[in-house]
């Protein structure tokens, strides 16, 4: 059914906008990104009175200035797309603050319906709101709803349809901003009227107000289209700004904000809002916060909650991971039976099934992790974690909200950088967000653990636990220091204010959790099916081609025949001989392949860190996925296929290999911990940062950094211990 009208959901973060959106659209929604930026664009549709309604969920904002991308996106949508009705979701339990945004909608003159959400919460706090009186004073319909249960939503849609069918373009509300600013606005009117191109899009007085507020976007547009008039208008603004500074010591924006709040006060007083209890009643949330953010108990509880998140994710997801592994093994077997031997079969099994299977193996982990995060986020706990950790993270140029991405990525060994990078979305400040998503891949993710365990087990078996713990500490230390360096260089800039809301604790709704989890997981799966497939075929081809020349292949074939003939009686000896020939052949084949040649070529450089060509191949493979390092090392050290979970024999082999020693192991460890993020993470970084440049940066910078570190460790280590 073709939607007949478009409504936009707007409102403060935490006002229940998403809950209403989920309630209206259910599963009929899709998430995209606004072109070029990483703000999510959510859209869905619903049916009311036989009419199809397109619902657009605008990013949550507190204001309509041009400081953040979210606000710009919301404002541009309202002005350029002109939705039929704007539904402003207002938290009834925090009415005055929420009306600040509503007030700006009125000034802009958009067709507005106010959804007075969470009236049940407000009532529990002893606040009653006379919706019809509020409606009369604001001049727009006000419908009380409870988005969680869906109560009042039908009446809300009725009101929306009424507003949409009246076809009356509402007039912008003229607020008084005090004598000085009113005078300035009046003076500006003739000049503003001359800006015909702008007044065709924006209300005239609103333009004036935005110029006084020194709004970047509007100032830029005015100067661009009407340079002369624009300069005059801005000069007028500056004069009044100086005047206000001298007489009252305030900025024009401050005066405008004061008058907006004054307007709100005049509306909410006199019978609209009645409070039954004393104003400072201790809410349940406050009682919980007294314990949960307590000086001593707070950090302990946080550690406990994070530990539970890990246990939940990694222990409960192991069952579906097992199923998926079995499923892919089955597919692999099926392909093995169905297809004839040859390069195509090898590609399907080693390239397609193993590659994509390896990535899909992450899906349950990611799904469980996202579910856990959704619980923490929707309940309001995440904001408390940011509150408690901000002091430390701020020191390193990050933000309290960076904690979660770090922890998910492996802050407690065993996470995954892919959901970590995705979780950096909760950060609202661009610079800190970029620093976060560029440094989270330094954490020890679950895929690095097998190789860490292998090397530590082989060379430092006496202090295994200590070294594992040290590697986690090293990861944190390096990641935070690099973040600090990035914030002092390429991501220089003032830190974003921590003026943040601590939303009251709420029970998350199951529907919201499921939708949250699913949409994030689905984005991940889409990636696995496309880009990863290509890369894993490429890696396979690199390690397979060019194949051994005819003469070498027949040489091994004749060796095999010989072994079969000479040891016809000795069955055990025969198998051993055949296995030896097979590994020798595999070894030579690898040396001959493109991957092998690259590995050998790279040895010229990597030798300074004590890394040989076979390890190089493994490290290249590790770019596809870090799990590949162990299995490729196994192949490269001629052991045939090695299961990453059972690396014991490889461990012995490495510890006896003359090319390896504890110093080399330490250098390789450092390199693996900090070099280029795996391919999936790189793609996520590109997507989340909105540019492939940052993805390329993270590959090059991290690899260079890791290599420098590895060389330093190897050279110093060689001086101290290997003489």
């Amino acid at each position, binding site marked *: 059914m073709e939607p007949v009208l478009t409504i936009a959901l707007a409102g403060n973060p935490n006002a229940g906008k998403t809950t209403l959106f989920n309630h209206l659209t259910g599963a009929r929604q899709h998430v995209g990104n606004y072109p070029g930026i990483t703000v999510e664009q959510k859209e869905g549709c619903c049916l009311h009175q036989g009419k199809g309604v397109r619902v657009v969920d605008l990013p949550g904002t507190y204001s309509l200035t041009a400081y953040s991308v979210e606000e710009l996106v919301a404002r541009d949508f309202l002005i350029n797309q002109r939705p039929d009705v704007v539904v402003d979701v207002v938290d009834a339990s925090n009415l*005055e*603050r929420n009306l600040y945004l509503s007030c700006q909608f009125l000034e802009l003159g958009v067709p507005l319906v106010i959804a007075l959400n969470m009236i049940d919460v407000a009532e529990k706090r002893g606040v009653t709101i006379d919706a019809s009186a509020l409606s009369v004073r604001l001049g727009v319909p006000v419908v009380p709803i409870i988005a969680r249960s869906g109560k009042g939503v039908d009446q809300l849609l009725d009101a929306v349809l009424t507003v949409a069918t009246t076809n009356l373009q509402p007039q912008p509300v003229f607020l008084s901003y005090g004598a000085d600013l009113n005078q300035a606005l009046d003076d500006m009117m003739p000049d503003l009227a001359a800006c015909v191109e702008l007044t065709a899009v924006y209300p005239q007085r609103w333009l004036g107000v935005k110029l006084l507020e020194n709004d970047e976007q509007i100032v830029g547009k005015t100067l661009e289209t009407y340079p002369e008039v624009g300069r005059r208008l801005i000069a007028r603004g500056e004069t009044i700004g100086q005047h206000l500074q001298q007489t009252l010591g305030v900025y024009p924006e401050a005066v405008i904000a004061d008058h907006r709040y004054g307007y709100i006060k005049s509306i909410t007083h006199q019978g609209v809002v009645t409070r039954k209890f004393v104003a400072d009643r201790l809410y349940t949330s*406050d009682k919980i916060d007294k314990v949960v953010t307590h000086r001593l108990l*707070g950090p302990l509880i946080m550690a406990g909650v994070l530990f539970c998140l890990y246990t939940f994710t990694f222990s409960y997801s192991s069952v579906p991971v097992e199923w998926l592994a079995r499923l892919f093994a089955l597919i692999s077997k099926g392909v093995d039976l169905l297809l004839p031997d040859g390069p195509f079969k090898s590609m399907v099994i080693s390239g397609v099934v193993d590659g994509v299977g390896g990535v899909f193996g992450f899906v349950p982990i990611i799904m469980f992790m996202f579910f856990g995060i959704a619980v923490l986020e929707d309940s309001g706990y995440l904001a408390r974690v940011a509150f408690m950790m901000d002091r430390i993270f701020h020191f390193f140029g990050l933000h309290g909200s960076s904690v979660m991405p770090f922890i998910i990525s492996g802050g407690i060994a065993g996470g995954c950088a892919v959901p970590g990078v995705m979780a950096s979305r909760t950060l609202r400040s661009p610079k800190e967000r970029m620093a976060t998503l560029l440094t989270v891949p330094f954490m020890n993710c679950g895929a690095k653990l097998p190789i860490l365990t292998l090397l530590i087990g082989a060379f430092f078996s006496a202090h295994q636990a200590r070294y594992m713990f040290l590697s986690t500490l090293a990861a944190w230390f390096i990641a935070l220091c690099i973040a600090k360096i990035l914030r002092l260089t390429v991501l220089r800039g003032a830190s974003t204010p*921590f*003026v943040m*809301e*601590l939303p009251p604790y709420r029970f998350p709704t199951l529907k919201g959790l499921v939708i949250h989890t699913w949409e994030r997981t689905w984005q991940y799966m889409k990636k696995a099916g496309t880009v990863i497939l290509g890369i894993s075929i490429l890696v396979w081809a690199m390690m397979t081609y060019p194949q051994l020349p005819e003469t070498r292949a027949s040489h091994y074939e004749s060796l095999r025949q010989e072994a079969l003939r000479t040891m016809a009686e000795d069955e055990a000896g025969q198998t051993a001989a055949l296995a030896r020939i097979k590994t020798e052949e595999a070894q030579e084949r690898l040396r001959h392949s493109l991957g092998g040649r690259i590995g050998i070529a790279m040895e010229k450089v990597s030798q300074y860190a004590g890394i040989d060509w076979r390890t190089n191949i493994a490290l290249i493979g590790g770019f596809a996925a870090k799990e590949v390092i162990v299995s490729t090392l196994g192949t490269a050290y001629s052991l045939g296929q090695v299961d990453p979970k059972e690396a014991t024999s490889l461990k012995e082999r490495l510890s006896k290999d003359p090319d390896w020693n504890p110093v080399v192991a330490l250098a390789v460890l450092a390199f693996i911990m900090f070099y280029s993020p795996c391919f999936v993470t790189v793609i996520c970084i590109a997507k989340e940062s909105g540019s492939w440049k940052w993805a390329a940066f993270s590959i090059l910078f991290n690899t260079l950094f890791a290599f420098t570190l590895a060389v330093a460790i190897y050279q110093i280590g060689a001086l101290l211990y290997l003489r």
Partner: protein
Amino acid sequence: MAIINLRKMGINQSGTIVAVKVGGELGRRIREMGLIPGMEITVKQRAPLNDPVALRIMGGTLTLRNNEADYIEVEISP
């Protein structure tokens, strides 16, 4: 009736904002959250490392860092 800096307020102390002396992005963020002259606030909690601070304003709880609180002057309620 003393006017002090928001940073110096103790837990559970209440007061009325008398001045917010900052412009730009920080000023805007502070104001849009309702921290404007005339508003009543109560300090609710401090983070384990003493910074940031959580305070009650109107119907909600806000957090801000100490160096951001420095711009806000409060008249303490008796």
